[in-house]
């Protein structure tokens, strides 16, 4: 036991003496959360729209007003004719142009029908879709208001859409769990694989092997410090997302932390496994970054829903641990569900952890090659 503690102490000394490691460990998670939270946002706020009002009556003015005052849009320009549309898009500030046809208000009242065009800048498909959806929603809302007194004789069904768990469809709800998932596996796997391959590269592994330290002691000694530090990381990220993005943990905090510990342990054992198959630090970094980051971002369901993927990707993603953790963390943080609903995913993570640890201990070389 004293041997083991001596080893752990040495690992902490390595970490605290190396500012770069500390920066990677704590700087990157904070930066990621803030970048993803603020910059990579799916919400629209103050998107530029230009208005081409060919009718210019009371109703069009009212509707324009409603759109602009919604907070989602900001009027960039008032256009006079169709030729201006291309020009205004080229300037880049305008994401959509809203066109009211001639005699919009008159037609609406006399015929009960009038046309309005939304032309969006398709070079940014995501924004374009959002802008058109938001505008349509506002216009629908407006017609319903207007229709109340005017068209009370016709039957109308108006769907009242509500978003459960995330009423405002805030994108932080998606990104914070995603970033936690990504960061924990990256940092944990990267750090442990690098720290073990470093011993190989500097020749110190040779000395460690010719010592009474057992492989399991070396492995656990490597894992322990990073386990503690990664756990602090989790607390840091959760506190940050709560303070900056007002994202509370709906479910049990203890359950969430326990699941995080499991996930960290899984990532650490994966890191050790990576270190046993890579001969030097570069290889370890390469495998950890390319082998883990891309699949996690693309295939774990973090950004793109797995249901929409071709079946083959679905199979590939089913061997990725982040896929399961993301379900767990979203359930606990956002839906507030208990273990009842996520025991399957938890079990898969436990099995993965055991397999990784088992493989690493078996593959750990007690001699040089």
């Amino acid at each position, binding site marked *: 036991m004293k*041997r083991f503690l001596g080893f752990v102490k040495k690992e902490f000394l390595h970490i605290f003496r190396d500012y770069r490691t500390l920066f990677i460990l704590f700087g990157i998670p904070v930066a990621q959360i803030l970048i993803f939270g603020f910059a990579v946002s799916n919400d629209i706020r103050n998107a530029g729209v230009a208005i081409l009002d060919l009718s210019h009556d009371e109703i069009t003015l009212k509707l324009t007003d409603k759109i602009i005052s919604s907070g989602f849009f900001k009027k960039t320009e008032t256009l006079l004719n169709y030729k201006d549309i291309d020009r205004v898009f080229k300037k880049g500030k305008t994401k959509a142009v809203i066109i009211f046809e001639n005699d919009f208000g008159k037609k609406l009242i006399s015929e009960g029908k009038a046309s309005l065009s939304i032309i969006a800048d398709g070079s940014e498909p995501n924004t374009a879709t959002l802008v058109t959806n938001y505008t349509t929603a506002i216009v629908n809302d407006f017609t319903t208001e207007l229709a109340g007194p005017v068209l009370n004789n016709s039957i109308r069904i108006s769907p009242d859409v509500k978003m459960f768990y995330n009423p405002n469809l805030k994108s932080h709800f998606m990104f914070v769990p995603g970033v936690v998932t990504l960061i924990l596996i990256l940092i944990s796997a990267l750090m442990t694989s690098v720290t073990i391959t470093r011993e190989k590269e500097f020749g110190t592994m040779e*000395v460690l092997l010719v010592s*009474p330290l057992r492989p399991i002691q070396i492995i656990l000694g490597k894992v322990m410090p990073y386990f503690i530090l990664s756990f602090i990381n989790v607390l840091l990220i959760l506190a940050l997302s709560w303070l900056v993005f007002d994202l509370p943990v709906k479910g049990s905090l203890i359950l969430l932390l326990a699941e995080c510990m499991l996930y960290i342990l899984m990532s650490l054992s994966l890191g050790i496994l990576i270190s046993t198959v890579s001969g030097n630090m570069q290889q370890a970094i390469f495998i950890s970054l390319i082998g883990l980051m891309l699949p996690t971002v693309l295939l774990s369901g973090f950004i793109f829903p797995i249901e929409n993927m071709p079946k083959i990707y679905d199979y590939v993603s089913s061997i990725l641990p982040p896929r399961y953790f993301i379900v767990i963390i979203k359930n606990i943080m956002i839906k507030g569900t208990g273990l009842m609903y996520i025991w399957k995913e938890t079990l898969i993570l436990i099995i993965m952890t055991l397999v990784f640890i088992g493989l690493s201990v078996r593959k750990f070389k007690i001699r040089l090659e």
Partner: protein
Amino acid sequence: MLKAVESSGISKKFGPTIALDNISFSVNESEIFGFIGPDGAGKTTLFRIITTLLLPDEGEMSVLGMDSTTDYKELRKNIGYMPGRFSLYQDLSVEENLNFFATVFGTTVEENYELISDIYSHIEPFKKRLAGKLSGGMKQKLALSCALIHKPRLLILDEPTTGVDAVSRSEFWDMLGKLRKYNITIIVSTPYMDEAIRCDRVALIQNGEILSIDTPQNIKAGFSRKLFTVKSAEKYKLIKTLRKNPEILTAYPFGDSIHVTLNNNTLDNSLYEYLVREGIGDAVIMEAEAGIEDRFLELMEKDNGITNKA
């Protein structure tokens, strides 16, 4: 006498290269045993087999009465190993390195301080300094301290003095000499022939084969011919001229002179006259006592079956 290491017929291949070929030797308890040979001779591979880090392809290796392949766990507690490359933690201080290795081997620095005090006292003033910032000589002393801290019964040093200045090298060997009184067996390798003389026995190793094992004195005495040194201001021209002469068996550069052996083994005026004819008038020829390196070169030549005159 008890044997610390007994090796019989050890062979090791790395792919097509034969690193060790049928190596047999034995090391007595508490002697200083040296392996002398050029880079790539197989010294490091052999040491890794002794320290249980590598498995031999063939042969048996008994270390401290234990089998190096099966009893590796027990054996590792009793071996102190200093690899050829500086293998301590460069980002830990002198003190931290020493404490770490003491803890790993289940002991404390205080417990065995006496053993290392001679060596460690040289670097103790710098104990707060990071190991990576030490000079070459100090690094070696720290590495030796770390290898000794658990009072091993067998100390294995792989080229401990390579890349260390002459004064530190000499000091280092003085320290090894002082360790005799603790009954520690020391196996050491070196490419420097002048260090061989400080071992009790040495093995000359070349291309994975042991050429000879004996005391340094006997190895020197084994030199079979008379040896002469030839000096001249124009050393390069001298050696070329000497090697052209069919009367000369071997001619090797040694520091500022050339060591020469002759086919008929007797020196007369003809060599001097030959050199004058070839335009070297300032040559000084003397008979000399053979060193270990001379014997080593002689053995190597026999082993290779070639002479450098060809």
